Structures are given as C-alpha cells and as structure tokens.
C-alpha cells in the first residue's frame, strides 16, 4: 500500500448548541474522535446517513470547517502540511492541492459568469497562470478532459443540463491540478443515467490526473462501484472501515449490515429487511 496522502488523527469537531443556565453547555459532536488515512491514488468512500458528520469531516480536510481537536496531515511528496495550522501562503498553496466538488450542480455555478470564467476563476484567484492566453489554454485543456464541448465555453450555466453542469463543476475543481479532491454527494442530485456518466468520468479522471478522491455519499451501491476503500460513519463516529469488497462481502458492524439490507434491490423477489433497532 502506498503512503497516505491525507491522514486524520483523532479529529473532533464540536459545535456549541447554545448554553444552558446550569450544567454543561450542550454541544453537537459532528465528528467525534475520528482517525483515518487515505492512501495516495485512493478512491476512498465515506458513507453515512444524513447527520452522520460525513460532510463536516470532508470540509475539515479542506480547511472549510473549524477543528475542535485532533490533526489532519497532508503529504503529497512535495509538501507536508498540518492542515489545521497553515499559514497564509501555505493555505493558498494547499487550496491548489485540495479541492471540492459540490452536490448541487445548480447552486454551485454562478449564473452570472460564463463557463470559461467559472473554470478560470481558481486560476486567477490563486495566481497560477500569468497571462490570459495561458489561462485560456488551461481552461480548454481541463474542459476537454471533462468532455465539455469547447464551443460552449462562452455560454452561461443556464444553457446546460444537470449532468453538463456537474462536468463544469468538476472542471473548475480540477483546473488548478489538485492532488486531492473531496466529492461531496457529487452524483446525488443527478438522474441514474447521468450519474453513471459522471461516475465513469470521475474514475477516468482519477487515473488520468493521478488524483486521490474522497467520495462522500449516502448511497452504498454507488460507493461500492467506484471506491476501493470505504468508511461507514454514524453519528460522528466511524463505525467500520475496510476495503470495499471486504466490507460488502462481510460487514462486521451491525449498523453496516442494517444499511446494506435497507438498499432496495432490483430483484422484486428479494425481500427488504427492515430493522427497527433505533426508534426515531
């Protein structure tokens, strides 16, 4: 196994929920003492239901959520960062190495910018390119990789369907050539046929651009298809963490089994097993 690209050690993220007059101030433990490491070149799945803390964990790795305690180490061979305590210049550099792909392809693109400007924005912000021609070159290169029609770069997002918007969103995340990408429910809002297309695109981009991907999803069957390692999160805690095949063939935790059995199967004669372990 290759060296970890990102390593999370005993990470906790707590949010205050308002103070009571007496007693302990109550906190929401969005992430509670989580440790995991993602190997370089890995396609790592993070699965959980709503409120499990998976999004918060992903954001923390991008320095977009406050860390209460614990450490996040990022080492891509060129730099070795403690993500929680980056200086200004280091943070800018880190931003070009770690990027985010959003869930909602409609909210993630500014309706007032052309596709070209949207994809070029990270380059301009991080001052990666020096001339307009160079920026255009980079934009066209990544747009082609994301299978966008280069003729369409002049258009505004309102001209595109959900699947095409998601490709624009991916192109923007990848234009600064990051090493690490967090895909937060990147296919949850898409129709199945487009979902398959975007998943295939992510897979091919990963090997082509040598990416490491943290794939956050509520959908176990999607994760099973693209990821090589999966962690199951529940109420801020990682319940189980194993290579995909091991986890799906032989789930250890009760909660994982419950999740797996709840997935509606395509076989009409296969019975859904409903467990009412937790009363909601």
């Amino acid at each position, binding site marked *: 196994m290759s060296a970890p690209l990102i390593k999370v050690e005993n990470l906790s993220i707590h949010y205050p929920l308002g103070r009571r007059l007496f007693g302990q101030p109550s906190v929401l433990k969005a992430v509670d003492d989580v440790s995991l490491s993602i190997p370089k070149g890995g396609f790592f799945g993070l699965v959980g*239901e*709503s409120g499990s803390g998976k999004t918060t964990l992903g954001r923390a790795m991008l320095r977009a959520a406050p860390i209460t305690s614990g450490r996040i180490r990022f080492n891509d061979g060129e730099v070795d960062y403690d993500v929680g305590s980056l200086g200004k210049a280091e943070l800018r550099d880190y931003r070009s190495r770690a990027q985010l792909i959003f869930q909602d392809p409609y909210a993630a693109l500014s309706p007032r910018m052309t596709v070209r400007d949207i994809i070029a924005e990270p380059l301009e912000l991080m001052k990666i390119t020096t001339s307009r021609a160079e920026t255009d070159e980079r934009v066209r290169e990544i747009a082609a990789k994301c299978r966008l029609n280069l003729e369409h770069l002049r258009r505004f997002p309102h001209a595109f*369907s*959900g*699947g*095409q918007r998601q490709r624009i969103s991916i192109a923007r995340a990848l234009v600064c050539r990051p090493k690490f990408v967090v895909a937060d429910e990147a296919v949850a809002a898409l*129709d*199945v*046929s*487009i*979902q*398959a*297309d975007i*998943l*295939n695109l992510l897979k091919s981009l990963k090997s082509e651009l040598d990416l490491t991907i943290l794939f956050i999803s*509520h*959908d*176990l*069957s*999607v994760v*099973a*298809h693209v990821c090589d390692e999966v962690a199951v999160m529940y109420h801020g805690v990682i319940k189980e963490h194993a290579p*995909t*095949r091991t986890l*799906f063939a032989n789930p250890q935790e009760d909660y994982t089994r*419950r*999740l*797996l*059995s*709840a*997935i*509606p*199967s*395509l*076989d*009409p*004669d*296969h019975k*859904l*097993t*409903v*467990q*009412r372990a937790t*009363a*909601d």
Partner: protein
Amino acid sequence: MTALVDVENLTIRFRTDEGLITVVENVSFSLRKGEVLGLVGESGSGKSVTAKALMHLNAGNVVYDPQSRITLHTGDGAIDVLSLKTPKDLSVVRGGAVSMIFQEPMASFAPALTIGAQMVEQLLIHTDMSKSVARKHSIEMLDRVGIKEPDKRIDQYAFELSGGMRQRAMIAMALSTNPALLIADEPTTALDVTIQAQVIELMKGLVDEFGMGILFITHDLGVIAQTADEVAVMYLGRIMEKGPVREVIRTPAHAYTRGLINALPKLDDLDAPLAPIPGDIPSPLERPAGCVFHTRNPELLPGSRYEREVPPLSEVSPGHFAALFPEDLPGRA
C-alpha cells in the same frame, strides 16, 4: 380485481412564452384496487405532471387534449376527472377519493398548525365525522402507521418530528379519509435508506390492509422493484414500456428500460461497468419526431423508421407492452 383508475390517451401541454410545450403525450394506463403501479422516469419524463392530472392539480397554463380521459371508479360510479370544475366536485379527487403524499413532508404540513389540527380539519371537510370522532380517528391512524404515543404526537408540530416520522404522519393524514387511490410522489427520495426501507414496508402493509390502489412515482428502479406490482417506464412524456414489474425488470424489451437498468450500480455485481445512456435529455422545446428516445438509442441504425414514426405499444407477452414496432419485439427477430 376491479379497475380503479383508467387513464386514456392523456396528452398534457403547457402554454408558455415559447409556445405550447408537450409534457405528456398519449399516455394510457389503468390501476386496479389493491395494486401498486410504479411510474418510473428521469427528471423531465412527465411523471409528476401525470400524477397531478389525476387530481386536476396542474398549473393554470395547462392544456389537456380533448381526447384525454381520466376515469375514476369510486363506489358511487365513474367520475370523469378532467371535466370536474367546481371546487365542490374537485374535493372528491383532492383529499376525498384521491390523496397524495409528497417528497418533502415538511412542505405539506402547515408550520403553524399541529399535526392533529390539520388531520382533523381534513376529516371535517371530507367526511361527516364530528370533531371528537375525527380526533379519535386521527390518533388511530397515527398508531396504524407505526407512530409511538400517537395521542401525544398529535399535538406536536411537524418540525418537532424526525424525517421518517414526518413521512409517516403524512401517510397517516393521506389515508385518514380512506381514499380509494393514493398518489405517492417520490415519497422516499428525501429519506435515508434505512428509513426508506421502513416507509416502503409500511406502504406495502397498508395496501394489504386498506385495499386501496397506489400510484407510486419514483426515479429509483430499485424502490419500484420492491414496492410495485405493475410498472410504467416514462421518457419525455411517453410510456416506453409497461407491464408486471418482474417481467419489465427481468426481461426489459425497450432499449430505454435496459439503459436505465444498466446505468444502475448493482451491489451483487461490483465488477459490472456502469453504462450511461448516451447523450443528454433533449429540451422539452425540441421533442424529437418519431420515437422520442431515438436520439439516444444506441441500438438504432441511422435512418431507422423510429426517427420518423411513433412506434405503437406492442404486446411483448400478456400484459407486458413496449413502444416498439411489432417486428422488433424480442423473440421475433
């Protein structure tokens, strides 16, 4: 089993600035008592618009073609839904004989009223129960859908309940008037899988218990496989394939149905590649001529007659139809 709803040649258009947009075209299906009919389709397939037509709920700029007919068979005879006009007549299909549950239960409960207040109000409108009887009945319904301590929950507000609870309360409300037909529009899409499984199980149990018909709308073939008896696959407002759920899913006759199934990640075969349907859904402004799916059908050769002619719904096997010309049916080539 007796027919509950017959939808015949339903064509729905919307008047817009760009002209008439066809959203549903020549759709026919029928639903029997005690049966779950799944309506599957991607976004823009017209499945929700079809469902709303059953309650005559579509927006003001809707145009139904004259040969469209929706007939609802209730205990008091047949009702031609599309000819209903007055609010009094419409109340039969809106909350009376037909109830609807939605994707987002939060949006269908008024935030300032307790769940009980809304359930009782609905019963007072649609039945001749007295207020106290209606309240008792509401508590009973909440109990039926598996809500614990229903006499306490009834005085709570929707935001005080969890997502799964809310969806249950919504189902209880929809069923309290004892509708003959329940329309469920993506009722499990916003829920977590574990809760989705509970809601699916609940709905199946309720069909057995109450014997009403359910029109179950979803984009998820897996959910359909687990709930429906019959399924109709829609694409761009047309039915591509319909029939018993086992046959349609196991031996799909239409390329679109096969495409949907192949695009779905399957847990029992992790090595199967995900095969997306090529191309993008055309905008509703440019409906393809002939078979609406021909622009994305990888199995068609250029110049095929599907580009010009609309294929009829041909019978693949008894009760199983696909929008194909008879010579293209599986087993005939």
